[in-house]
């Protein structure tokens, strides 16, 4: 393995991919060699997923070439990918999931070999993972599932992993586990493997990547050794202004009366923006869902709801896929504007048009199907749905997932304005930067509130302290 520094694994030459008129990828030349750790960054719609799918052989290029050095196909060449959305079979065990992606595993003893292989891979990447090879996947937490998926990606599976593509691998992992993964990536690259690493956490990119590639509008706009970038420079190249100072100027209005206090200790005042923080998967989303369900009814229609919900997991919790943008927005105000049970179509159209311009949904016509929008714009529709209603309490479950920086800035401003008008927001976010904009922050740990921060106490250090402190104690 002495020459691994320049052993090419995959080479793309002017590779392009068009979907109809849409140029998802517009001529990209790129080579990945053994030992490379490439950080891939870019906004939504920049072409990251398409590029990944070309490299892993999931899509064929419309023009240009892709050459795998180790064999004819990505599979033979040892190119694997771990996808953003969870792609395990929930009804199978961890070992059986390995079998799915390891077709050479056959014969009577396959189960034993599968167990040994996945155990070895998990042990290597995530020491002390505590995951049984015979656990059924739907009994695992989201973070554990993502760990299993990553472990399967790195497992030998009959050949050898030479290039592993990780698309947002740390999105559900807490920082400790993410750190283990980053360490493993560095070891893997040092021993001659290659990694393409996609993350919205620029810090992680700088920690592991040896080279950073910036995609924009389907092209590579910059490619340098990671030392040659600064965080600010990287964000500038991506095309949006970085939200360096997230603080909103101006004194906050006087706190209103308390409108919410749960048994768990969650409290909010009128006009307050309350943040929920802590490590991912520590009960924030459940607390919010429970709060929403307990304050709304599955039986009683309500003219003016007490609470509305902004989903972060759009396909699961937010988007009604068969409908237009208009209907997706108006569902929350139908009962309020209805006359004798009939839909008030004028009011509906007016509200949709108003919110389209207020929140800047990028579409010619609100009658277009919701799925014609990009992820970020779909998210804006979900915000519009919630804000269009009169509900005094707005619950947001990590709503900025997969949203580009520009949209985020628009939405932050809008939330501020609505709060000033007396609405209360409960905002769970996995990004500490966002939580730091709130008036009050509850930090969750192990499904309990471990700290309540207000005013100047709201800082990344304090939040981290509260997220971790008790873990050492127990």
């Amino acid at each position, binding site marked *: 393995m002495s020459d691994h520094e320049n052993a090419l694994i995959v080479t793309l030459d002017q590779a392009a991919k068009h979907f109809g008129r849409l140029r998802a990828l517009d001529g990209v030349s790129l080579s990945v060699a053994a030992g490379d750790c490439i950080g891939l960054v870019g906004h939504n719609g920049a072409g990251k997923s398409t590029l990944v799918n070309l490299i892993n052989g999931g899509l064929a290029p419309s023009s240009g070439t892709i050459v795998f050095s180790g064999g004819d196909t990505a599979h033979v060449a040892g190119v694997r990918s771990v996808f953003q959305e969870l792609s395990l079979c*929930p009804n*199978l065990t961890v070992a059986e999931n390995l079998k*799915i992606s390891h*077709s050479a595993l056959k*014969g009577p003893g396959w189960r034993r070999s599968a167990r040994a292989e996945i155990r070895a891979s998990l042990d290597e990447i995530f020491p002390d993972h505590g995951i049984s090879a015979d656990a059924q996947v739907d009994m695992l937490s989201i973070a554990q599932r993502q760990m299993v998926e990553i472990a399967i990606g790195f497992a030998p599976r009959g050949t050898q992993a030479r290039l592993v593509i990780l698309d947002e691998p740390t999105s559900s992992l807490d920082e400790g586990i993410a750190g283990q993964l980053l360490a493993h990536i560095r070891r893997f690259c040092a021993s001659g493997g290659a990694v393409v690493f996609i993350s919205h956490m620029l810090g992680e990119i700088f920690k592991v990547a040896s080279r950073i590639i910036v995609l924009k509008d389907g092209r590579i706009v910059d490619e340098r050794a990671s030392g040659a970038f600064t965080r600010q420079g990287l964000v500038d190249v991506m095309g949006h202004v970085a939200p360096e100072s997230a603080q909103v100027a101006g004194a906050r209005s006087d706190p209103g009366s308390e409108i919410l206090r749960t048994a768990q200790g969650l409290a909010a005042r009128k006009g307050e923006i309350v943040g929920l923080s802590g490590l991912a998967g520590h009960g924030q989303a459940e607390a919010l869902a429970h709060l929403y369900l307990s304050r709304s009814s599955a039986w009683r229609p309500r003219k003016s709801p007490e609470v509305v919900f902004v989903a972060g997991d759009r396909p699961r919790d937010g988007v009604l896929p068969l409908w237009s943008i208009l209907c997706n927005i108006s569902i929350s105000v139908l009962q309020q504007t209805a006359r004798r049970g009939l839909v008030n179509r004028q009011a509906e159209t007016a509200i949709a048009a108003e919110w389209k311009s207020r929140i800047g949904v990028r579409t010619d016509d609100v009658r277009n199907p919701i799925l014609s929008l990009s992820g970020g714009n779909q998210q804006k529709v979900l915000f519009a749905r919630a804000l269009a209603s009169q509900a005094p309490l707005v619950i947001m479950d990590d709503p900025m997932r997969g949203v580009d920086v520009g949209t985020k800035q628009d939405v932050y401003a809008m939330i501020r304005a609505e709060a000033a008008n007396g609405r209360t927001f409960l905002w769970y976010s996995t990004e500490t930067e966002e939580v730091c904009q709130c008036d009050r922050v509850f930090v969750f740990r192990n499904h309990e509130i471990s700290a309540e921060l207000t005013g100047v106490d709201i800082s990344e250090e304090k939040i981290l302290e509260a997220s971790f402190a008790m873990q050492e104690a127990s």
Partner: protein
Amino acid sequence: MNFLARHRIILPVVSLAVLLAATFYMQPRTMSYFGLNLLFNLAVPIALATVAQMMIIMVNDIDLSLGAFVSLAACVTATFVNDTPVLGLLILLALVLSYAALGALIHALELPAIVVTLGMSFVWGGLALFILPSPGGQSPEWLRALMTVKPPFAPMAVVAAVIISVVTHLLIVRSGIGTVLRGVGGNARSVARAGWSVIWLKALAYGLAGLFGVLAGMALVGLATSADANIALRYTLLSIAGVILGGGEFTGGKVSPTGAVIGALTLTLAASFLSFMRLSPDWQIGAQGAILILVLTARLIFSRKGAAT
């Protein structure tokens, strides 16, 4: 994360045991070789049909044509297999292959299985009428002998049920290909991404369903000695109920072959139980429905308790 969620098989076993105990209590004479044989006499074809339905439910589809298909297989067995065995077996093989082709078609064109199988129920039923316009035919001797064999210790129906459950357990739960098939039900996209041809897997699942459907038809003829075009129409609903009673779920590839066989036994026993109760024939069907509801209620209560602890 509770015990019952992990061991889904327990509740079906308990339901069967309770019903069996109640039957023994009502009619102690059934607690014998011949008694059991009588109780479970018709269980074999129902168990085979339930396993067939399970293959389809395993890949997230549902088969509304199974009853008609089993009837057709029974008609073919009672006529062609009896008269011209080679031709008869070839026809049965063709039926299995057509099931596999149906699975491939449903997957390739993304058709709703519930509707295609609904249409196929007309087709199978029509073919059966074509072969046997009026009840008749005859069971082949060897099949009759096989279905009425008296093994030592336990009656034929019980032995057959155990064999069916062991074979299908090995095939679906233990083997590699069975794991991949269940994976199709759990997450077809990730199976496809791992390089498997989902269309072949679906064809395989449907083909297996066809195979077990044909076996169900043959077993039924072996017991009934003749056939008619409507002989097994109620198997469609019985088999679905059997899979669910056995702890299976309609989506997500969560099925249990052993559970399915036990579910089929429970349904058969329910019918026998009711006739021992000397219930007015008016109410027999309704009581079967009530038992189905009761068992599922019990399951709900126990799994709630399990979840609470």
